[in-house]
């Protein structure tokens, strides 16, 4: 690809500078690129900095955070942008579906008006037009009786309905890059499928780029071509979603896959059956061990793992995969599954 990628992040690090305490590095050495129309999934430990990464891209880091490295949108540096310039980028160029629907909504404003507000602000249409567009959007995200519900306040909506209002606000502006931070956690699977369909359509038809953060590997599999697995503030493994899920190379990825609760057709959930877990918990950012951040919890760790931070190593037929583990096996040919998709058609 000779053209400039839509989003390019190089060596991004984010450090918390709490007053009167030692700085706490949250993100370190995160790099990724995203082209127009591409989709990227981010999975990873809770607290590993996924939301922080998306806030950095949106220029919404908390005041105590300092970012270093580069984030470029269409070649334009975002980290050094003044606040005034951000207003034209947020919403229109980069849209975000926030993880916390309640904090992203104004509790004192009817939801219909909140959606319309963005439309008026960025598109300069008349209030009545925006209102109608807002109701259409609510309908699209499957809020029953959208016209009436537009007059509701956020606290009168169910958790999933609030989340869908957040989605409608982000969709309203049709941004070039959409960051969806756990967009469907509060939705039932049928609505979730419909929301993912809407995002798909925008990706396919408008060439929107999508970053989707989720703990649900099923959602990632469904919505993202490529996936990056994060752990304790850095990328551990990345690659095409199919390859990553079928043939994980990092022990953390393997652990995640094993911990996934699955329906087990034919098996009774006998008493005493437990889910597999990864032993231990993430080390705090303030006392990150030297060497590999996963070492303390890893079954495959050796002395070498604790000495130096493993480098990011590229592999795969076209260098399309990367992993940060000393013991990851790189050479084994990727199982050639030309059409791995849709083993189970709907």
């Amino acid at each position, binding site marked *: 690809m000779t053209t400039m990628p839509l989003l390019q992040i190089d060596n991004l690090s984010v450090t918390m500078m709490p007053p009167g305490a030692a700085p706490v590095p949250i993100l370190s050495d995160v790099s990724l690129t995203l082209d127009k129309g591409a989709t990227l999934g981010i999975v990873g430990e809770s607290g590993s900095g996924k939301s922080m990464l998306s806030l950095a891209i949106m220029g919404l880091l908390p005041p105590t955070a300092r970012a270093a490295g580069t984030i470029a949108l269409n070649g334009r540096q975002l980290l050094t942008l003044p606040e005034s310039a951000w207003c034209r980028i947020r919403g229109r160029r980069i849209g975000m579906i926030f993880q916390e629907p*309640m904090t992203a909504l104004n509790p004192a404003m009817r939801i219909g008006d909140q959606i319309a507000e963005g439309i008026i602000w960025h598109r300069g249409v008349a209030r009545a037009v925006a209102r109608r567009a807002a109701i259409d959007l609510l309908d699209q995200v499957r809020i029953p009786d959208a016209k009436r519900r537009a007059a509701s306040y956020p606290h009168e909506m169910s958790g999933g309905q609030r989340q869908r209002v957040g989605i409608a606000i982000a969709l309203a502006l049709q941004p070039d890059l959409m960051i969806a931070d756990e967009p469907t956690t509060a939705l*039932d699977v049928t609505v979730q499928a419909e929301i993912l369909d809407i995002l798909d359509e925008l990706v396919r038809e408008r060439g929107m780029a999508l970053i989707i953060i989720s703990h649900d590997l099923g959602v990632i599999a469904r919505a993202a071509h490529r996936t990056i697995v994060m752990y304790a503030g850095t990328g551990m493994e990345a690659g095409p979603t199919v390859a990553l899920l079928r043939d994980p190379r990092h022990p953390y990825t393997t652990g995640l896959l094993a911990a996934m*609760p699955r*329906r087990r*057709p*034919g098996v009774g959930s006998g008493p005493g059956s437990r889910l597999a877990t990864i032993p231990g918990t993430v080390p705090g950012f303030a006392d990150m061990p030297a060497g590999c951040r996963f070492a303390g919890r890893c079954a495959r760790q050796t002395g070498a793992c604790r000495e130096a931070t493993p480098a990011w190593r590229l592999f795969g037929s076209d260098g399309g995969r990367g992993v940060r583990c000393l013991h990851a096996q790189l050479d084994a040919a990727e199982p050639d599954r030309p059409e791995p998709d849709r*083993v189970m058609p*709907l």
Partner: protein
Amino acid sequence: MTAAPLLEIRGMTHDYAGRAGFGRGPALRALDNVSLSIDAGTIFGLVGESGCGKSTLARLVMALDRPSAGTVRFDGEDLFALSAAALKRKRRAFQMVFQDPFGSLDPRQTVERIVAEPLHVLETRPSRDEQRERVAAMLDSVGLHRDAATLYPHQFSGGQRQRIAIARALITEPRLVVADEAVSALDLSVQAQVLNLLLDLRETRGVTFLFISHNLGAVDCIADRIGVMYRGRLVESGPAHAVFEHPHHPYTRLLLEAEPDIARIGPPPHRSQPQTRSLSPPAVGVPSPACAFAPRCPLVTDRCRIERPELRTLVPGRDVACHHAETMRAAFSRPTQPDAEFVP
């Protein structure tokens, strides 16, 4: 079953008042005649459409709201008939984990105060030191560091906050815990830990759970029985495994089909373009005489549009509210195959 169930919900109906202004609407019926009971020491999974009234039901079970009609019996006592003082004393026995970890923690309080809050119901309040010790032990058991006690909620990620909320719910050692989407904000490994924790609590202390979730896999892993809700009504209930393997209601079937699966990569091949607009009738107003699911139902017949199916026992232990449950039962008498054709 000879022992009375720990929790018994009968004929629960709840209306939210219509909003004035914008055309004063009729009341919104969030729950419509829901009855279910949960035996002590079991985990009841509740799944259903977003906005179908699960959280409303949870709030009513916690006696945080009064239903428009219906009763909640906890341990044989009608919660809404108790005096305020008696209810307060009872509260130590049932606690709740709220759906939204960002809204359920007071931003101005330290984690210690938040987690210790339910200790308020105890007759003898623990001393400062004892309280600190109990909070620390609780934080430990949900996988947070003891130091977390002095921090404020905004210093935690979503998943970490949810663990704080879980610690708060467990600190009085309740007999019933209502977990409203308690694990949906957690990453897979912590989620597995929390699910295991719930299973442990049930085994070692006989804690009963009402476990509300959209994650069918998680529900299947831990629930003994499940209930499926749609538009304020219970449409199917039964042993978790049996229901998931052999759904008798078309909505349950639809849910299972829509469940994302890591084996399915990429968007599904495009089916007949889904109806995009308003396939849902208004969820409000006079309870319509039709089956609420009729507009989306592949099995719909004329009868469904004029007569509302009531919940009935199809076979012992399995209740379904659908006119064509027998058809469903016959059509999928074998465990569902993921690729089974789904035609009426």
